[in-house]
């Protein structure tokens, strides 16, 4: 009790919690779950975008997309490292992903059907991710907060790049504009769902807010995202697929239509268009790569043994 109070006092004083600091088990668990989900999202998120690398329409776009997907792998790496400071190994986290026990962002369970989807993901999905992540740069857990600072910088570059793809399409030929509009139509609602259930239905929010793992509610972040994104879309002449979307002068933000929570829960529970394939792809990579990881380990051990034998011989 005294420990919990002291811990909360540190949090309230905006002190950073570091790996070797004592922390409540619930705090640790919440972080492990959240950082794990976040890491998995980066990893699974490589797949829908990776789907267009070999078909990117220009060399410049191909290079940018490669770099982006590589950054996502990098984010996964920092985040797994941050989670490792809490005592879970990358291997354990991977097993949880592949078994379906750990979640990842549901948005990646939608397919990337056209090139414009690459623009839409950068603009909307990375845009939504940033909204979620900027407050995390001030998260109470030090390693996570520091990882997020780096991640956020790169994400906002990706977001601009995605928006630039959409702008190019929206100002291109009629086919290109249609492609951009179609992508917006398909990705808009899933992007809004990225912020999670409405505040009333959110399971983990209260305690996370108290521990300063979270600093805004789902609905607050969603509203920020809508307010930031709608003018961007309108600026390039795209229409949002929501007849209820309109500026509310009074609240100084946009009103928007009701989210289809049935769809949200369906996808979360594994019945989105690509859930099965995403996990299958990761499982295949993991299983096909087992011999490589084993070989690397075996070689490192052989090397070490040889070094030691040489040392002994020299002594």
């Amino acid at each position, binding site marked *: 009790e005294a420990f919990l109070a002291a811990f909360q006092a540190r949090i309230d004083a905006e002190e950073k919690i570091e790996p070797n600091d004592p922390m409540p088990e619930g705090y640790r668990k919440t972080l492990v779950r959240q950082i794990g989900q976040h890491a998995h999202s980066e*990893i699974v998120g*490589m*797949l829908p975008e*990776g789907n267009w*690398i*070999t*078909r*990117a*329409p*220009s*060399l*410049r*776009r*191909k*290079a940018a997309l*490669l*770099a982006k*997907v*590589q950054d996502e*792998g*990098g984010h*996964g*790496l920092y985040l*797994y490292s941050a989670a490792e400071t809490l005592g879970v190994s*990358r291997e354990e986290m991977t097993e949880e992903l592949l078994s379906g026990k750990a979640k990842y962002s549901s948005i990646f369970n939608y397919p990337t059907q056209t*090139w414009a989807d690459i623009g839409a993901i950068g603009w909307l999905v990375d845009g939504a991710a940033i909204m979620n992540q900027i407050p995390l740069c001030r998260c109470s857990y030090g390693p996570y907060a520091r990882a997020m600072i780096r991640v956020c910088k790169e994400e906002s570059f990706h977001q601009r790049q995605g928006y630039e*793809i959409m702008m*190019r*399409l929206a100002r*291109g*030929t009629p*086919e*290109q504009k249609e492609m951009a509009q179609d992508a917006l139509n398909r990705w808009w609602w899933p992007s809004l769902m990225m912020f999670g259930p409405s505040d009333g239905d959110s399971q983990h929010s209260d305690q996370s807010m108290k521990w300063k793992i979270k600093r805004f509610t789902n609905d607050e972040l969603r509203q920020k995202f809508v307010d930031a994104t709608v003018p961007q879309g309108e600026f390039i002449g795209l229409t949002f697929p929501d007849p209820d979307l309109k500026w509310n002068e009074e609240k100084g933000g946009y009103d928007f239509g009701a989210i289809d929570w049935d769809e949200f829960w369906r996808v979360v529970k594994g019945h989105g268009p690509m859930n099965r394939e995403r996990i299958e*792809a990761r499982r*295949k*990579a993991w299983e*096909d*790569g*087992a*011999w*490589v*990881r*084993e*070989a*690397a380990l*075996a*070689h*490192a051990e*052989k090397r070490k043994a040889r070094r030691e034998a040489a040392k002994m011989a020299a002594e």
Partner: protein
Amino acid sequence: MAAAPSIAPSISGETLTAFLLRLADDHLVLGHRLSEWCGHAPMLEEDLAMPNMALDLIGQARSLYQYAGEVEGKGRDEDQIAYVRREREYVNCLMAERQNGDFAHTMLRQFYFAALMLPLWQAMMTSTDERLAGIAAKAEKEVAYHIRHAGEWVVRLGDGTEESTRRMKAAVEALAPYVDELFESDDVTRAVAEAGIAPDPSTLRPAFDAIVGPVFAEAGLEWVETPYGQTGGRQGRHGEALGFLLAELQYMQRTYPGMTW
């Protein structure tokens, strides 16, 4: 359009373009293959390293296509050259287009190609063609990393587990017929060499062997000689895998011709 670049007076623009296209196609096609691993690598570190190398290759290809377009002087930009040719007009070496196979095959192929390119770029750093000397100076640093990275994997897998050794040996076997083509010389390479633009590939074999030899020794691998190497890539005679690669590569440019992305 940029003014026509000044090229070494002893060589025709056509010959220089032919040389540049070969090099550019090698990089584009191999970069494409490498990028197919994206999101499917055996470990996260390789999900970073492979796109990283692919990025280098695509970047080098872009520099070379841009320059080729200028030398050619027909106003084609990098994308028109990279994407809008027929299969028989691609002049990459056959090794670059081989399907990825397993990780051992991919890494060995990468190692071989880097072991060709390192001495090539090094020599081109003092090319009589300043544009190429500049491209080479940047590329040389990048490819030195490829040699380290891929070379380490050749060692690890060659001297790892029984399975990895078997797979690495199978890769050596499978790629053997495609090594000699890397060092082929013909009128184009000789003209380019005479003009001091780039060394003739045939002169690079000792440097290649000097890179590959120690790595193979450390990996416990033996070099496999083939009685007959495969050839034809430089004349646009390719295997059956390239057509499918091009169907993907060209998809957008062919489906939506002449648009800006």
